[in-house]
């Protein structure tokens, strides 16, 4: 009798543990409970705080579009994260790759080409992708050729990129004004706003389309198959005639390129110029976006919207009830830790 109850209880846990959809949902709920506990400890009513967060992220058409504006770079970087993580290349360098892409996009956008936006904007996207990919290439190369831990090098490259942007906007790329930022891009080089009176720009559509492309890449192409095989079973991949070196290099380039496009989207869609520190840690949040999304493009879309909402609502929450916005990093860190316990132990489907 007791044994039977025990079995049933265990089976509930087993179901939760095994279900690719339920598990992240439970982790997300648990992390919100943790956030609520922190608020209670510091004397804030979590219901009021979460209400303020929700209103500021989904309460009106403007707040929904702000959520999507934040979700857009998270989605692009999150897609990059899953391409890399799928073959166990731990790219934590999305933050630096965003900046590298942003720099390249701003440079190309500032070229006096006198082209219509229809041509110039794709050029900027390409430049952003190339910038991010180049920035990811060095750590990838060092990983496959010299076995240097990519986590360390990609993080070092993040710091290098942040200071590089600082150098450029204070020095060679500084615009006419007093502030350390580059000259405003010409209007035809800015991503068009799609909904009037909001910042909902074309980049959001591009990001959603990219999610479809990455889905296709992972599941329907030879490269995607190779990436998955290298991540799941390196020995089997080698025996099957796959060269892991070139697979990891491709994954690194694609991963960096996607983050670079995120940089282009920020520069071309939101800032309309190169600004110091234009990313509020999108690249670091992307790790959680990819993991909460269970390394699946559709999951990443949902996770990116979740984190976009957290980002756009956290400032409102801070000013409404005085909960520091850093609470979203507590929530994020907790999610990553919880998911790590299950991560890659089961065959990824």
């Amino acid at each position, binding site marked *: 009798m007791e044994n039977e109850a025990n079995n049933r209880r265990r089976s509930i846990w087993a179901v939760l543990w095994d279900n690719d959809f339920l598990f992240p949902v439970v982790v997300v709920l648990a992390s919100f409970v943790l956030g609520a506990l922190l608020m209670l400890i510091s004397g804030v009513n979590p219901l009021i705080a979460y209400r303020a967060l929700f209103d500021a992220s989904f309460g009106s058409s403007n707040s929904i579009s702000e959520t999507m504006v934040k979700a857009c770079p998270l989605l692009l970087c999150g897609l990059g994260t899953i391409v890399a993580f799928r073959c166990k290349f731990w790219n934590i360098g999305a933050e630096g790759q965003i900046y590298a892409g942003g720099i390249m996009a701003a440079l190309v956008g500032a070229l006096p080409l006198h082209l219509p936006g229809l041509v110039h904007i794709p050029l900027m996207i390409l430049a952003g992708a190339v910038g991010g990919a180049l920035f990811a290439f060095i750590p990838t190369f*060092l990983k496959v050729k*010299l076995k*240097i831990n990519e986590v360390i090098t990609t993080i070092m490259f993040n710091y290098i990129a942040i200071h590089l942007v600082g150098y450029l906007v204070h020095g060679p790329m500084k615009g006419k004004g007093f502030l350390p930022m580059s000259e405003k891009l010409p209007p035809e080089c800015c991503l068009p706003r799609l909904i009037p009176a909001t910042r909902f720009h074309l980049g959001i559509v591009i990001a959603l389309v990219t999610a479809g492309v990455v889905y296709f890449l992972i599941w329907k192409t030879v490269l995607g198959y190779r990436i998955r095989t290298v991540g799941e079973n390196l020995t089997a991949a080698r025996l099957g005639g796959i060269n892991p070196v070139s697979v990891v290099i491709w994954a690194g380039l694609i991963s960096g390129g996607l983050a670079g496009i995120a940089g282009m989207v920020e520069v071309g869609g939101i800032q309309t110029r190169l600004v110091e520190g234009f990313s509020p840690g999108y690249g*670091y949040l992307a790790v959680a976006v990819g993991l909460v999304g269970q390394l699946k493009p559709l999951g990443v879309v949902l996770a990116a919207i979740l984190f976009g909402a957290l980002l756009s609502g956290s400032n409102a929450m801070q000013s409404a009830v005085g909960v520091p916005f*850093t609470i979203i990093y507590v929530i994020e860190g907790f999610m990553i830790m919880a998911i*790590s*316990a299950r991560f890659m132990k089961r065959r990824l489907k």
Partner: protein
Amino acid sequence: MNEYFTMIFFTGFLSGLVRIGTPILIVALGELISQRSGVINLGVEGIMLAGSFSGFYICYLCNDPWLGVIAAIITGGVLGFIMALLSVRFRANQIVAGIGIWIFCQGLVGFAFRRAFGIITLPPTVVGMTDLPIPLLSRIPLIGEAFFSQSVLVYFSWVMVPVVYLFLKYTSWGLKLRSVGEDPAVAEAAGVNYMLVRHLAVIFGGAMAGLGGAFLALNVLRFFTDDMIVGLGFMAVAVVFFSRWRPVWVLLGAFIFAAASALQFRLQAMNFPLNYHILLMFPYIATVLVLVLFVRGEEEPGALGTAYEKER
């Protein structure tokens, strides 16, 4: 160029070297023990921050730096225990778990810091620890002041180098630790409690990371901001890779890595005609370069980065 390499530059550089090298050394020695048992703990960046905040805050409240140091060690140990729980007990992917710990600490410290001090323009400060000059040695010209007129924690970090070396090489617990890091299955067959050894090693690594953070807050900066670690924890992990898991090389590596930072600060202070942002990049570029020049993955502990599951 000559004018920049005056005596003043040199002593300033050396004491900067010790101030930045010591926290890296302390954290790297802990990480070395952790990695020798088979666990890469990338959370040390966050644990350093948590250690420096708890150390700073306790010192701020009680006006006693030693209470702060104890608080930092306990904080680091608890976070190390969480890392051990995830990576050893639950066999989580160590890289992902470490990143989780790091971001969790960033968030928690940012939260606690803002709740404790509110919105402020200037960071809060403490008196911190006093230096303890060693008689005679501290009078040696040029290097005396930099190396022998320092905090007790600096001397502690130097003592820990031979202690860790001797522990790993000559004690039975050191042998157990290494065997678990090389091959947990063999170690377990020989009667080593694999679970316990790895837990203790990772907790020790966490406690050292907390201590390193406290050193930074109470000895070097004597103020607190929640973005003060800026990659030092990751540099400590890089130092362990550089050292090829040998304690004496950790000492060397910590000071090579610190030299890049100290040089950068010194040149900044001397108005060196090179852009300030380029100078700020210098330590990170140097870290990557050192890894490129010296690190090959071949000599790592056999089971590094892998979880071990008992066969049933």
